[in-house]
């Protein structure tokens, strides 16, 4: 009877929400950036499934329902972009040029390094959109034929890395403007980096939020163009 229950969406949805709520509580109590709720939830759920011998396919019955909401969430990113259109237009040069350069640098350095280090075609393709927010990255990688779960894991890793090291790294490079710092961390580390920038400085956080959407758009158009040369 119980094993039948595991194959219903109730299990996957319930487990995801429960673990995520606990991970959020843990993050709020400790404020340790390494205890990022997404990272902790993914690790905890994998551990639970492996230690109980529950196949991923059973979890996915409900997991896919939660994942479905990523689609309309990408469409919803149009709202903050529309609301901040005046800030975008006022600083359009530094924002567009900075993010465009970062988008190209991300695809070329991630895929290029993996290629030079002997990574397989699947790994090289899966690395291309890793600086973009997950819903867009997954859509891109499914279109070009990479591994969506690998990309998702790398996107989260990239996000945590930028969130932990980004502000200090930018200061060491002599970048003083909060907008430039926000754009840098937002372009490299999407939503997880943006959350950190909002804690540091509000203007930097807004710039980072902008970078999520714009980098997502630019990478979507750039990846197919750049991979024409790759094949």
């Amino acid at each position: 009877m119980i094993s039948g229950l595991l194959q219903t969406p109730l299990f996957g949805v319930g487990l995801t929400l429960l673990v995520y709520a606990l991970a959020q509580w843990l993050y709020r109590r400790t404020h340790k950036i390494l205890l990022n709720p997404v990272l902790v939830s993914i690790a905890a759920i994998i551990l639970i499934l492996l230690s109980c011998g529950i196949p991923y396919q059973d979890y996915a019955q409900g997991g896919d329902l939660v994942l479905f909401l990523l689609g309309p969430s990408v469409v919803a990113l149009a709202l903050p972009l529309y609301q901040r259109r005046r800030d975008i237009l006022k600083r359009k040069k530094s924002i567009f040029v900075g993010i465009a350069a970062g988008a190209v640098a991300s695809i070329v350095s991630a895929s290029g390094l993996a290629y030079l280090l002997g990574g397989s075609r699947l790994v090289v393709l899966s690395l291309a959109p890793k600086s973009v927010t997950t819903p867009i990255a997954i859509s891109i990688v499914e279109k070009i034929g990479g591994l969506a779960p690998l990309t998702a894991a790398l996107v989260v890793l990239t996000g945590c890395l930028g969130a932990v090291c980004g502000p200090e790294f930018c200061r060491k490079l002599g970048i003083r403007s909060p907008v430039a710092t926000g754009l840098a961390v937002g372009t490299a580390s999407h939503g997880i980096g943006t959350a950190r920038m909002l804690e540091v400085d509000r203007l930097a956080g807004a710039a980072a939020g902008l970078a999520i959407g714009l980098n997502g758009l630019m990478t979507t158009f750039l990846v197919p163009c750049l991979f024409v040369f790759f094949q």
Partner: protein
Amino acid sequence: MVRGMALLLLFQFLGEVISRGTGWPIPGNVLGMVLLLIALARRWVKVEWIEEAAEFLLANLALFFVPAGVGVMMYFDLIAGEWLPIILATFISTFVVMAVTGKIADRLEPENKDGP
């Protein structure tokens, strides 16, 4: 909430139709975002119609990608076999992007025109 969600799904659907119809390698939900941006700018869609649903989704964005990350357990073998290129490329590239975007944006800042 229901109206907003219906509109977001409608725009995703329209984007999906264009993506599949044209065969462009651009995801339907990204095209949906562009279409919604145009619709908001042209005032075909009012912000109030979608605000509640959009804010709900964006506030919980992080939760939605947990199942995507869990899927990585299916590919532990592949990662174990190629962990060096994967980890090195991810780490180095993240810092390259921050340096490139940060330095260029800092140079072009309107306030920084006569700065160093």
